């Protein structure tokens, strides 16, 4: 009797949990779902009130923003790919050897590591003004190179924390064996640590790419025409396109979907990055 009652109780609890999941999933993702739907609607469907949930999808909006000829969206997207990719690769090149030195040789562990991990918490606007002035003097305003440098700065804290955490877990015997064979630190790093670190290198690459892609403040301040990333470029649609909701929604979708898909592969690392960073920082 008791067993049976418990069975019903836990079944109800189980169902309630599913209800909570579905409600949370829909509410949290509502703008994404709605924008995605709008981007496949015809003008007539968009102007129908209340908005229909079932409609025959069209690709016209995508055709208009990608091949319409009167938007720069393709170049914004290309800019974002170059900037986010370059920023991610540069951050990895700078932080991976540093993480190795910090873990294995304890160089800079007491000052550099906490300094860099805490950088994450400093409001970026503080550096926006002097960097703007510096870029103006150096001729880096509105260039992809300048934006790559900025995205690299933004990615350094998380990349360093994740690398330090990962290399700490590689047994020291692995590089000791290489040392016996007379390998230098650089060779050990390249031939032993890098191959073992492939998963974390990939994770940091993707995560940094996502952060670089999503960045807005510096894109807004430092670019005007040539190097505009998609986060900034897509906001132009709202004002210039005014009533063309379908085209705007298509532009949004193209700006939002790449990091969403990449994020699905890397989100477990975010939890790790935050916890190790904060606990060891």
């Amino acid at each position, binding site marked *: 009797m008791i067993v049976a009652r418990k069975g019903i109780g836990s079944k109800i609890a189980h169902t309630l949990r599913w209800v909570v999941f579905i409600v949370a999933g829909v509410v949290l993702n509502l703008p994404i779902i709605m924008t995605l739907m709008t981007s496949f609607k015809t003008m007539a469907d968009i102007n129908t009130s209340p908005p229909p949930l079932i409609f025959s999808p069209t690709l016209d909006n995508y055709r208009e923003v990608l091949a319409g000829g009167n938007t720069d969206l393709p170049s914004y997207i290309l800019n974002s790919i170059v900037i986010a990719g370059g920023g991610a690769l540069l951050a990895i090149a700078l932080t991976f050897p540093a993480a190795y030195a910090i873990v294995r040789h304890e160089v800079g562990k007491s000052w550099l590591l906490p300094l860099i991990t805490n950088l994450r918490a400093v409001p970026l606007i503080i550096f926006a003004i002097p960097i703007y002035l510096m870029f103006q003097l150096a001729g880096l305003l509105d260039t992809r190179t300048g934006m790559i440098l900025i995205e690299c700065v933004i990615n350094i804290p998380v990349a360093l924390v994740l690398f330090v955490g990962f290399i700490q877990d590689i047994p020291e015997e692995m590089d000791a064996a290489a040392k016996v064979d007379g390998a230098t630190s650089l060779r050990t790093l390249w031939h032993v640590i890098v191959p073992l670190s492939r998963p974390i290198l990939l994770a940091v690459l993707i995560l940094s790419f996502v952060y670089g892609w999503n960045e807005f403040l510096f894109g807004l301040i430092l670019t005007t025409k040539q190097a505009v990333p998609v986060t900034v470029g897509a906001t132009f649609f709202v004002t210039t396109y005014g009533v063309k909701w379908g085209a705007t929604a298509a532009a949004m979708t193209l700006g*939002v979907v790449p990091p969403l898909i990449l994020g699905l592969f890397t989100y477990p690392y975010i939890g790790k990055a935050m916890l190790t960073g904060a606990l060891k920082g």
Partner: protein
Amino acid sequence: MAAQRLGVRAKERADARYFLVALCLFLALMLGFPALANLWYSFSNFSFRDLTGGSFVGLANYRQAIANPGLWSALGFSLRFGLICAAIELILGLALVFVLHPLLAKRPWMTGILMLPMMVSPALMGVMYRLILNEFTGVIPAYLEMFGRPINFLGKNNVYFTVIGIEILQWTPFAFLILLTARQTIPMELEEAAAVDGAIGVQLNTLVILPNMVPTIIIVAFIRFIDSFRVFDHIYVLTGGGPGNTTTSLSIYIYKLFFNQNVLGEAVAVSIMLLMASLAILFAGLKLAVRTRTR
């Protein structure tokens, strides 16, 4: 032999310094130099026309910055915004973890769906909300109208709550994900032992699980407060800080001083004060973290 080994280690350490050189140089150039330039600019009367010129004006910029009531209203907004958002995100995140944990353990795809919003650029999230909340063509007001109570989310009276709501909806997934990571590392034995003692449901969560998650809760609250405090993107695209200055955060305030109102010296003085304040808070946070760890 041992001395020789020690010598090798010392040499390796010296070699290892080279691995840090590139990173340190890069940071010095990209952050150290700008910070110092900022400091100099905050004491001078420079202009866009004459970046390398300008003469020393002492504390005039700081005096002007402090005397501007806009600074205090922006600071007030950022503090309130940060505290409200962090608190609500934490509560919602914890609730989701407690309710959904039994489902999520075997179904990682569910976590994937719930964390999606944090992968979206906050600026584009703002634009998307602008689309769906639009008074005339937005989807949400249209559905609400079916129930006979349309709300103008972006109107003067509601927009303050709308920007807070959007921040919470986008970043509750972050709180949820970090808290879930911590929840999943709590050993099963602990739960089983508590269950033997008769703890179930709410009791188990509040008396056994929750105390074990306190360090993570503090970390999440801290990270969320700091991130919300410096909010810029979605507010900028939704309201630009308005109407008036009701949604002007500190970041937007500095941006507007510099790029819209061209009071360069004052903007730089505010950002130096903000840098000092955040360093002080970080230092305090670091001390707190060390204390909780050694306890």
